[in-house]
């Protein structure tokens, strides 16, 4: 397709292939940009390069074994994914989760949201051009929190620590002091990144007004999480449909005004501060001792026939688990509604019309995790 020019020199459009192996595509995402000079005319996303069939395999694993696959599906915020899956199984099986386990879960899920946002800060700033600096800040802070995760669950990334009905084993005795120390350290880390990026003139120039989307379109595309809150909608599942014990904490929901890349960054930055507030309140209210699993938990958990669509607020948006059970100890069908998958549908809408360099910024601002997009 040739493009007419004012001076009558028509030029051909070039297909730029930002393929599976690309530093800015956050994993194996591929998009073919049709480019007229510097301006993006068309964008065709291709996914599926990491489709590993977690849903098919979960149908052949029993309810406890499928927890491991949930970690690997959402590998930047594994605790949140586990929380959503485990609550879905509890809803079906009608299990009551004891108090102490609820608090441990909320603390770990919120801290995992912070590590996921740290990873976003590093990757997003690298896409903008702050090469490496924000990455080192982000990963330095992540290590502190991952040390705490390792003390509690024994692993840095793939925890498999939550169980239907509570948590696998009790948190260590110094859990409260460690969490308080990590919260103090995280507040310092957040202000570091805030100081580095928010008022950085180049950063604002590169992200303000890029990839904006209106709230009606956002709802029509099914966007969720920080991408939707950046459009100005005060929408958060922890507040609208409070699950677990989120109704006991007071935290506010940051929203942006114009729904562009800077607002998405800013919403995630504020969310990290709110998460620290939640964790601090949770540590105060947490009972010092108590059961962490219901007493009458059967060895092999069998769910009565039925179905449930459990949704939870993940760092990237609404993470839903549609679980169909026909009796027995294996889920009959487990569908993961992944927020990145839905947020990616609007990528073309946000990118067409901007420059090629901005396509990278828009993709970074959506913050996708390929394990969850391709499942």
């Amino acid at each position, binding site marked *: 397709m040739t493009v007419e020019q004012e001076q009558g020199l028509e030029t051909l459009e070039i297909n730029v292939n930002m393929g599976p192996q690309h530093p800015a595509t956050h994993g194996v995402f591929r998009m073919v940009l049709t480019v007229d000079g510097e301006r993006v005319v068309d964008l065709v996303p291709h*996914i*599926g390069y990491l*489709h590993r*069939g977690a*849903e*098919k*395999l979960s149908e*052949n694993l029993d309810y406890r074994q499928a927890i491991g696959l949930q970690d690997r599906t959402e590998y930047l915020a594994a605790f949140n994914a586990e929380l959503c899956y485990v609550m879905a199984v509890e*809803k*079906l099986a009608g299990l009551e989760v004891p108090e102490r386990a609820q608090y441990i879960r909320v603390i770990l899920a919120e801290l995992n949201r912070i590590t996921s946002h740290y990873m976003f800060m590093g990757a997003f700033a690298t896409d903008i051009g702050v090469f490496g600096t924000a990455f080192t800040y982000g990963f330095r802070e992540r290590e502190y929190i991952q040390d705490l995760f390792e003390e509690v669950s024994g692993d840095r990334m793939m925890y498999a620590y939550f169980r239907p009905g509570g948590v696998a084993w009790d948190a260590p005795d110094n859990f409260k002091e460690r969490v308080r120390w990590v919260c103090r350290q995280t507040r310092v880390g957040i202000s570091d990144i805030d100081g580095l990026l928010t008022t950085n003139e180049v950063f604002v120039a590169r992200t303000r007004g890029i990839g904006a989307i209106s709230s009606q*379109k956002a*709802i*029509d*595309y*099914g*966007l969720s999480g920080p991408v939707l809150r950046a459009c100005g*909608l005060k*929408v958060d599942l922890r507040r*609208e449909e409070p699950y677990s014990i989120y109704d006991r904490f007071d935290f506010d929901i940051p929203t942006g005004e114009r729904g562009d890349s800077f607002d998405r960054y800013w919403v995630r930055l504020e969310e990290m501060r709110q998460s620290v507030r939640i964790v601090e309140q949770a540590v105060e209210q947490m009972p010092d001792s108590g059961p962490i699993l219901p007493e009458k938990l059967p060895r092999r958990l069998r769910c009565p*026939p*039925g*179905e*449930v*669509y*459990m*949704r939870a607020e993940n760092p990237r948006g*609404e993470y*839903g688990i*549609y679980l*169909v059970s*026909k*009796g*027995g*100890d*294996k889920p*009959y*069908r487990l*569908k993961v*509604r992944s927020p990145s*998958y*839905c947020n*990616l*549908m609007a990528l073309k809408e946000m990118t067409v019309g901007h420059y090629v360099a901005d396509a990278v910024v828009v993709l970074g601002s959506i913050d996708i995790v390929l394990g969850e997009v*391709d*499942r």
Partner: protein
Amino acid sequence: MSPEEQQEAPIVPPPPGSVADLFAAVLPDVKFQAAQGALDVILTVDREDLRRVLRAAKDDPRLDFKYLRCLSGVDHMEAGVEVVYHLYSYTHKHNVTIKARLPQDDPRLPSATSIWRGADWHEREAAEMFGIFFEGHPNLVPLLLPEDMTDHHPLRKDSPLAEIEEWQAERAGLAAGEAGEAEE
């Protein structure tokens, strides 16, 4: 687990005044089979008037389901393939699950992309994973599988898991295992 042990979920009628009654009010001539799921109300609809139900769900001010949460396929083998729509309304803050069951030999369904733009990829994935054909979908090409693989539907219950093949490095002689030493 073998098909005999599978039991169907008992139909628990939803509480009065729930979304099911709203739907009955908005669409009196459509017969719904309402049930109360673990969290939301489940309405099972025939395939013929599915499009009208979805269109009304989005446009009718009383329902106002502007947000398509999730669209998934479920393979019930002989009982056919089921397509499940989870909808949510930001204004009324209520949820609904709309289901349509398709016969296994003719899995065909009107597409919802013209109603919610967010249904595009969900439908492409359901199409390639279960072999459902969505009429009117602008670009029904496999999404997670390679574009030219159209006859392999992995999520169907009858497509088997792969066998564990022998690990390459143990098999003697293959270049892959001993790539380090270049052959003399």
